[in-house]
């Protein structure tokens, strides 16, 4: 089963994204801050991580960098989707420089999110 990890400190967002992705047939795990998210990623080895940027304790960029720098090659290659309101030019530059695979700007459309998630995952990962 394809596993997605969603990390956002806003429960309204995590609930919605989890709902949407579960509808697609994916397994979804949720965390509400960066550190817990990183730990969960290391433990659960998801196929994709949806990451908010502005979070307490450890922000999304730091999590992304930590993932990319992880000694485990598989984990370091995990696709990371940044879901954030920070989407000005300099933010995009920093995000991609930190290793993000894609960006979804808030306010977002769940249909767009689904398309990008599907595109970021290996073909055939999404049952729907």
């Amino acid at each position, binding site marked *: 089963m394809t596993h997605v990890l969603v990390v956002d400190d806003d429960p*309204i*967002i995590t609930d919605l994204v989890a709902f949407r992705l579960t509808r697609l047939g994916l397994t979804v795990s949720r965390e509400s801050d960066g550190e817990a998210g990183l730990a969960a990623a290391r433990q659960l080895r998801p196929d994709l991580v949806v990451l908010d940027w502005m979070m307490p304790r450890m922000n999304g960029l730091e999590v992304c960098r930590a993932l990319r720098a992880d000694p485990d090659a598989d984990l370091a290659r995990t696709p990371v989707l940044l879901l954030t309101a920070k989407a000005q030019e300099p933010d995009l530059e920093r995000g991609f420089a930190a290793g993000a695979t894609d960006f979804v700007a808030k*306010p977002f*459309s769940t*249909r767009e999110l689904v398309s990008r998630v599907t595109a970021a995952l290996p073909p055939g990962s999404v049952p729907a």
Partner: protein
Amino acid sequence: MTVPIAVAGYASLLLVAVTLLVLAAMGLGHRRRLRREQHEVRRRAELTPLVHTLLDDEDERPAPEVTAAPALFDELVLDLLPSLRGSDRDALQRVLATRGVLDRAARDLGSRAAWRRGRAATLLGSAAGTEHTAALVRLLADPDADVRSAATRALGKTGDVAAAEPLLAGLTAAPGLPRGIVGMALLDLGTPALPALRDALTTGAPTAQALAAELLGMHGDLAATPALLATLADRSSTAPSCIAAAGALGRIGLPTATGALTGTLTTAQLPAVRRAAADALGRIGDPEAVVALTAGLADASPDVRAACADALAAIGDEGRGRLRVLSIAAGPAGTAARAALDVLALAPRRTREVLG
């Protein structure tokens, strides 16, 4: 003199009694609040999945559970609405319309309580289409400042370009609108607002002119370039207008503006205006500006010197070469040059320094 003592005594007792009452009220209030919060948490958990299913519904007619859901349901929808756009947003807006939320809000626009008017305006901004533009425009003249701000924001969100003119007019008309909120609303309206902005640039009051310049710059509107250059050249332009025009020319990025900007850099009285010109020249990146920027390194204001150095760093090989030459010099110019080079060294991947 026993009377004052007796009075004081009674007064003390009265105060103690009032204190005890307050304590009792606190205790009761605390308990009630806890119970209410727990109840709400339960209800939210029940209703949230219902809200989520709305987003999948291609069906125009809402499910019966949705129409019958309590008022908390509307709150959940409204919580979610600002984070979404596209078809999700449309779906949620439809639900609110069907549940009569929008109609109630429209009526509340005329409420006597300011907070009700304000909340109604905010709600209509998030949730409604363009049917309420006229009513919201009327609120731009509301006696309460917070209500005016809420109405301004709402007009931006509804996306009705007919609001652009009233917004710009509202900047200077009494009782007046805060410049920043009008700016954000106009940005929300997007490119359809460009004609109104170009108008304000040439014919508007100074406040509107400065704001229009700033926004046209953010849009990168090439068509506005002549008017922006005219603003810079006009002696009667206010400092904020000049600063905004310079900033806009920088963002638009046409090298045709280099001449006017170098002129501003050399002759403007206020350091803030010179700084804006330097920043703009850096963004444009035209090597023609190198001479003026080099001279700017000797400016009296440290802020201007730093901006000139950063601009030179952003103008490719010519600018950077010049910086390296200057960096050996002693004095403030040399320090500024070295500082800019250090910044470059620290961020080698950036080909253009993005200034602030």
